[in-house]
């Protein structure tokens, strides 16, 4: 194992890149684009160092560093990852170059655009690597600002409303979390501390746990988003520029689920256990409701946004069922959703670049004009609807299996969601790609170019890879997932080992 601080370096590469981009002289748009691409690629390469140095047999935190920061308030710069954060970080660094590629078509105000995008990456990476509550909250909030500007400045028609809604919804949640963090800070044994690992040893009364958990949950539930706090998502997704949507869906939504896994459950296990049925109920409602609402959307991006609500419902369900399968599946599903939905947004973005409309009604029959595009879209849609052999299935299956182990009946409505997923995705696919061409402009849409294919190819490859051989992912997730599940269950794990009659 190398001593090189891969993790810390990878967090700050994008920030450094953003600063560097600030010095690019005016009018050098290409330099900005290639520079941003280079930065994100370097970050990805360095993150591979994180991946290869990761010891999969260690369920604890590794590869991090710790430095005193504000001694008076016990704030430290403390990082470290386990198998859960590892994949979140990989997902972020992986998606980011694709996001930059997707931004090739942006022509106005490139400099701030890429600066915000890169700053966003640092923020997101920081969220996943922080082991100090203060640091975590810092990164957590900091991600809001670049995203706010990305939506508000480079978004589409209703972008201001969307940006505002995005910011305020998430802010309200996170402010409550801040209160809880401060409470924890003072409640810590042996003097106030923001140190996550020390806070883990807290033994809070259940009543206290309850409201602290709810405060954290408020923040994470908005981010995930759980029904009924999801309404910012369709707006934000729809109006954001392509890269924004990709990052938002691909990574930022995971921050909520990640937060629940990292903080919600381990810090407040009893409360988490208590609220688990309610949260699972919300998750299942989200699965069904998201799918139903998605089916009726007239706007492609909105549809995908609602599908995210449904998908994240699976993630949350998996997290709270209290089985290793569910937890691992939920975590894997986070990655899967990032890939699939990211790809969907990239595709819709490419389509928008060509026709400047996202309305389903403006399309129809374009599979004939853009076969590569149609094929890729179908492929990604299939991944999204959980076709076995592609990534979505592995995650959803494990979640459902995990659910089945602990909450037998809940699996029925949840699994019903996979039927609905087929309904809304295929129906939308049919309306966009099948049938005769009704709008004349659609006859002359150019198919995907090399750049777009290049940005989708890695996604496609991973979608297949995870679908066929998820082992490298699962074996790194499992130790950490097991730990969290043990915390949720108060020490014991439920696995599929026991055979019992129904």
């Amino acid at each position, binding site marked *: 194992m190398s001593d090189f601080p891969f993790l810390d370096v990878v967090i700050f590469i994008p920030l450094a890149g953003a600063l560097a981009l600030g010095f690019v002289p005016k009018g050098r748009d290409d330099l900005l684009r290639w520079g941003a691409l280079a930065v994100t690629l370097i970050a990805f390469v360095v993150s591979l160092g994180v991946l290869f140095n990761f010891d999969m047999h260690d369920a604890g935190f590794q590869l991090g560093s710790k430095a005193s920061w504000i001694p008076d308030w016990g704030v430290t710069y403390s990082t470290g990852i386990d198998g859960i954060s590892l994949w979140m970080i990989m997902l972020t660094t992986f998606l980011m170059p694709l996001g930059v590629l997707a931004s090739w078509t942006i022509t106005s105000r490139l400099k701030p655009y890429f600066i915000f995008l890169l700053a966003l990456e640092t923020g997101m990476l920081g969220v996943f690597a922080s082991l100090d509550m203060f640091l975590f909250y810092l990164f957590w909030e900091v991600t809001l600002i670049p995203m706010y500007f990305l939506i508000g400045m480079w978004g589409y028609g209703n972008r*201001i409303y969307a940006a505002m809604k995005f910011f305020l919804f998430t802010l309200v949640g996170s402010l409550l979390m801040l209160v809880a963090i401060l409470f924890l800070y003072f409640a810590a044994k042996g003097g106030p501390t923001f140190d996550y690992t020390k806070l883990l040893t807290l033994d809070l009364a259940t009543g206290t746990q309850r409201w602290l958990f709810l405060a954290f949950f408020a923040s994470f539930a908005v981010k995930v988003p759980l029904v009924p706090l999801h309404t910012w998502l369709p707006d934000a997704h729809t109006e954001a520029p392509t890269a924004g949507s990709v990052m938002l869906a691909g990574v930022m939504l995971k921050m909520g689920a990640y937060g629940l896994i990292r903080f919600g459950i381990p810090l407040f296990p009893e409360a988490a256990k208590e609220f688990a049925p309610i949260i699972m109920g919300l998750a299942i409602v989200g699965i069904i409701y998201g799918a139903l609402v998605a089916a009726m959307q007239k706007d492609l991006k909105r549809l995908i946004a609602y599908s995210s609500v449904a998908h994240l419902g699976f993630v949350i369900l998996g997290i709270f069922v209290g089985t290793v399968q569910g937890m691992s599946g939920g975590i894997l599903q986070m990655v899967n959703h990032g890939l699939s939905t990211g790809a969907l947004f990239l595709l819709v973005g490419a389509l928008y670049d060509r026709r400047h409309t996202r309305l389903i009604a403006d399309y129809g029959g374009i599979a004939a004009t853009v076969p590569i595009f149609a094929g890729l879209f179908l492929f990604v849609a299939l991944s999204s609807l959980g076709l076995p052999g592609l990534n979505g299935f592995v995650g959803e299956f494990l979640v459902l299996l995990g659910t089945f182990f602990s909450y037998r009946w809940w699996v029925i409505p949840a699994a019903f969601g996979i039927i609905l997923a087929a309904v809304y995705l295929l129906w939308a696919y049919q309306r966009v790609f099948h049938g005769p061409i009704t709008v004349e402009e659609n006859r002359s849409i150019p198919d995907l170019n090399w750049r777009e294919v290049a940005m989708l190819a890695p996604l496609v490859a991973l979608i297949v890879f995870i679908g066929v051989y998820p082992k490298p992912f699962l074996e790194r997730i499992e130790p950490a997932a097991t730990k969290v599940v043990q915390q949720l269950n108060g020490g014991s794990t439920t696995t599929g080992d026991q055979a019992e009659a129904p």
Partner: protein
Amino acid sequence: MPAFDAPHVELAGIAPELALAVAALFILVFHAIVGDKLPSWYLPGLSTLGLGVSLFLAVGVWGEHELQLGGMVALDGFATFSKVALAVFGLLSVWLARDYLVREEIEEVEFYALVLFAIAGMMLMVDAADLIMMFIALETFSLALYVLVGYKRDSLISQESSMKYFLLGAFSSTFFLLGIALAYGATGTTHLYPGGDPTTGILGFLISNPASDAALLVVATGLLIVGLGFKVAAVPFHMWTPDAYQGAPSPVTGFMAAGSKLAGFAALIRLLDTALFPLRWDWRPLLLGIAVATMLVGSVLAVVQEDVKRLLAYSSIAHAGFVLIGLIPATDLSVSGALFYLATYGITVLGAFAVVSAISERGERRVRLNDYKGLFYENPLMAGALTLFLLSLAGVPLTVGFVGKVVVFGPAIDAGYLWLVVVAMVASAIAAFFYLRVMVVMYMQEPDEGHAPARVGGLATGVIALTAVATIFFGLYWTPLIEAAEKAKFFANL
């Protein structure tokens, strides 16, 4: 009756104030003699010198701890910290004002003198250990501010804001004075702290007498809170704030928001958290109510404002509410948090008004929210700086505003005022909305035609740069500031 005993005059405590008063008088006299013969920058130069000396003198007594001048002033860390902050605010305001005054072609001499006098008054306010001293200090800087607010005599709104501020200010000081009178009636003294005899002074009275004797003092406390509440713009004594902030010249608004708030709060903290600390069960409910009302009214009303200065005025009301949260627990931690908050809020808000002032164009024609359309494209640095300040005001991490919230809300939570902090969070969320609105206008709307890019003077740029750097720096590394605030103990610490 003892014969006249000449007081022992120690000047260490009030040296910074003296330096400022001297500097102000010197400016007036020197200008009267020399007139316009010297280059005009000598005036801000002199002011800077005076403020610098004052700052130096203030820092020089850091760590000392005594009651001086017949118990009239307390030389303690709390006062010193506040004075240093005030001197810094003064420096920033003077530099900022210089460019403004040149642009607006307003005579400068008295402006600097008044600013220096005002700061002297504020400094006296923060170290006053006697109610009547406090009152005179209050009146000194208030009078200076009335004039400064109306300094643009040719502007109707400047006059108007001056008159409103003045009338209400005078009105409120009668209540403050009545409070002093009742306190005097209750205790027979206006000193806050015991001198040699531990039973003297209001604090001594409270310690040495049964609580039942303090009833009149409680009433007096209520009136004192009213009077100082007016200064710090606490609801429902805030009504002057939007009008005065909007009408005053922008640098003055910034100065008021930073300095006047700090001075008022410092006095309030000194009063409540030391001298009247034994009465905390009586004043806490008042402060709780005021804090809640202040936070909510400030942030809710700001939502629909169309004038940036007015918007910032409402925001300053909301911030007053946040600072009040730091007063309520009255613990060491909460007081240092409040001090930290006041100092950093001052820097941030001065920065914000510096930007507002810099881009407002001659005659402050450009202060409506709509005038900021597309500012980012016209002047990215200014827009960026304003964004930074607004984010700090909104309490977004990486800015000092966030740290301020942490150090104020944290101790409150620790002291069990969880619900109060939750209310504060609600208010913060509402407040975020209007800060975001400004950003929306600056970044997400297309610029209107017809605005020539603002020419920002060198000093103003410097102020903006300094405050911006401070906002970020202390947002990332707040150790020095919080350490200082934590060491800023009262003369009489309970």
